[in-house]
C-alpha cells in the first residue's frame, strides 16, 4: 500500500476498527515506512491526549436547580395554557375577537347622524340661467316687510348654527313666479335700495369684477318649468356666491316640496356690496338689505331665504 492510502486509514487503525485484511496491510507498511510510523505516533498522541482530559462535572446542586427551573417554567406554561386555549381554537377565537372589535369601531365611526334636511351645496355651475326681469323689477321694490313677516314658517328643519359665531346677515329673496326669458345678465338699473355711498369707485370696480368674472358662461335658456324656479334661483345664487369668492355652507330644503328654502353662505366682507347688488338683479329682495357689515370682519355669513310671493 502507498503511504497516501495508509494515512487515510490510520485514524481507523488507531481505533482498531479496520477489517483484518486491511489491518494486516497497514502493519506491513508501517514496519518498513518511517514517515507513516511518525504519522501514526502523532495521531495516537492526539487521541490519547483528548481521552485523558479530565472530565468536567456538573455542580452538586444540579438536580435541585433543575427542579427549581422546571417548576417555574412549568408554572408559566400552565398559566399560559390556562389563558390561551390550544391553537386550533385560539386562533379562530382571536380572529373572531379582532373582527368583532373592527365591527364595533366601524359602527361607531360611521353611524349616521340624526337626519336633518340639510343638503350639501351643489357643484358651482358656470352656467347662469337668465332671470326674467319683470316690469315690477324696474321699479324700486316695495318694502315688503309685511310679506316677509307673514311668510309662512319654513317647514324645513334648520341647520344647527355653529355656536359662538356672529349672527349671519339675512337676505330674503322672493322667487319669481313667471318663467325666465333669455339670458340677460347685464346689470339693470333697478336696485332694491340705493347702495350706501361709501365705497364709490370700489363698488364700480367690484361690479365690473363680478360681471366679468372669468370662466362664467352665459347660456341662453329656454323657459324653465315654474316648478323649478326655486332650483334656478338656487343655481344662480350659488353661482353668484362662487363668483364673489364665497362658499356655500349649507342649503335647506322644504320637507314637503323639496324646494330649496335657505341658503347659508360665507363671502368676503369686501364683496358684500357687489354680492347684494347682483342678488337684487336675480330676484326680488324682500327687505332692505342689511348694511355693510362692521369693519374688521374678513368674511361674513349670509343667510338667504327663498320665499314664494303670496
Amino acid at each position, binding site marked *: 500500500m502507498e503511504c497516501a492510502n495508509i494515512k*487515510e486509514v*490510520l*485514524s*481507523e487503525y488507531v*481505533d482498531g*476498527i479496520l477489517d483484518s485484511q486491511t489491518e494486516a496491510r497497514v502493519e506491513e507498511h508501517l514496519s518498513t515506512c518511517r514517515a507513516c510510523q511518525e504519522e501514526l505516533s*502523532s*495521531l495516537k*498522541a*492526539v*487521541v*490519547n*491526549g*483528548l*481521552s485523558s*482530559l*479530565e*472530565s*468536567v*462535572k*456538573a*455542580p452538586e446542586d*444540579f*438536580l435541585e*436547580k*433543575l427542579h427549581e*427551573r*422546571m417548576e417555574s*417554567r412549568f408554572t408559566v406554561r400552565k398559566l399560559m395554557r390556562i389563558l390561551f386555549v390550544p391553537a386550533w381554537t385560539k386562533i379562530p377565537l382571536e380572529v373572531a375577537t379582532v373582527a368583532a372589535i373592527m365591527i364595533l369601531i366601524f359602527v361607531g365611526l360611521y353611524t349616521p347622524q340624526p337626519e336633518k334636511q340639510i343638503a350639501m351645496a351643489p357643484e358651482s355651475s358656470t352656467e347662469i340661467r337668465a332671470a326674467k326681469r319683470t316690469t315690477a323689477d324696474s321699479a324700486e321694490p316695495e318694502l315688503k316687510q309685511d310679506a316677509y313677516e307673514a311668510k309662512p314658517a319654513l317647514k324645513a328643519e334648520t341647520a344647527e348654527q355653529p355656536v359662538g359665531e356672529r349672527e349671519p346677515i339675512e337676505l330674503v329673496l322672493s322667487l319669481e313666479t313667471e318663467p325666465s326669458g333669455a339670458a340677460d345678465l347685464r346689470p339693470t338699473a333697478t336696485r332694491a335700495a340705493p347702495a350706501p355711498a361709501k365705497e364709490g369707485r370700489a363698488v364700480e370696480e367690484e361690479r365690473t369684477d363680478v360681471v366679468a368674472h372669468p370662466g362664467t358662461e352665459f347660456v341662453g335658456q329656454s323657459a324653465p318649468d315654474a316648478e323649478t324656479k326655486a332650483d334656478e334661483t338656487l343655481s344662480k345664487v350659488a353661482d353668484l356666491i362662487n363668483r364673489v369668492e364665497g362658499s356655500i355652507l349649507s342649503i335647506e330644503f322644504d320637507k314637503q316640496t323639496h324646494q330649496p328654502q335657505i341658503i347659508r353662505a360665507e363671502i368676503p366682507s369686501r364683496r358684500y356690496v357687489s354680492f347684494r347688488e347682483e342678488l337684487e338683479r336675480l330676484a326680488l329682495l324682500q327687505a332692505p338689505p342689511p348694511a355693510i357689515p362692521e369693519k374688521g370682519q374678513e368674511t361674513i355669513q349670509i343667510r338667504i331665504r327663498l320665499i314664494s310671493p303670496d
Partner: protein
Amino acid sequence: MVSAFQAGNSAAFDKLVLKHKDRVFNLCYWFLGDYQETNDAAQEIFIKVFRSLKKFRFESAFSTWLYRIAVNTCKNRLKSSDYRQEKRMARFDNPGVSEGTRPSVEIGDESRSPMVELERKERRMLIMRAIDSLPTEQKTVVALRDIEGLSYDEIANITGFNLGTVKSKLARARLDLRDKLRGVI
C-alpha cells in the same frame, strides 16, 4: 428507569438525571467552552428530556437519545449568536479570567506541584481552543469519540451521519488537531 418514569414514577426522572448529568455536562463543556453556559445548556437538555420522555419509544438506547438531544442543543446554542463566540474566544485569550469565572469541579490531583498544575491548565486551555476552532461537525464527532468514548455506530446514530462520514470527519478532525497542537500534545 425510563419505563418507571413513563409509568408515572416521577422519582425515576431524578435517577436518570443523576446517572447521566456528568457525561452530559462534560460533553456540553467541550462543545461550548463556558461553564455557566454549559450549566444552562445541561439543564435545558434535561428539561427537554423530561418533556419528551413519555414519547420515548425505546427504538434506540436511552443514552443515544439523550446525547442526540444534547448535541442538538449545543449546536443550536453555538448557532444562536456571534456574541457567544466572542465571549468564548475572549475567555480563551485570558485563561486566568476563564479559570476564575467557574468553580473548579475538575478531578484534580492535589499532589501535583503548582507548576505542574499550571502547565496542565494551560495545556487544557490550548486543547480547548483547538477543539473550538474545528468546524461544528468535526467538533461533534471528536468530542463524542475521543472525549466521551462513544463507538462509531453510536456516533452515527446520534449525529445522523452514515458510518463513512463519521470516519472521514473524525480522521480530518484528528489531523487538524494534531497540526494545531504540535508541541502541546
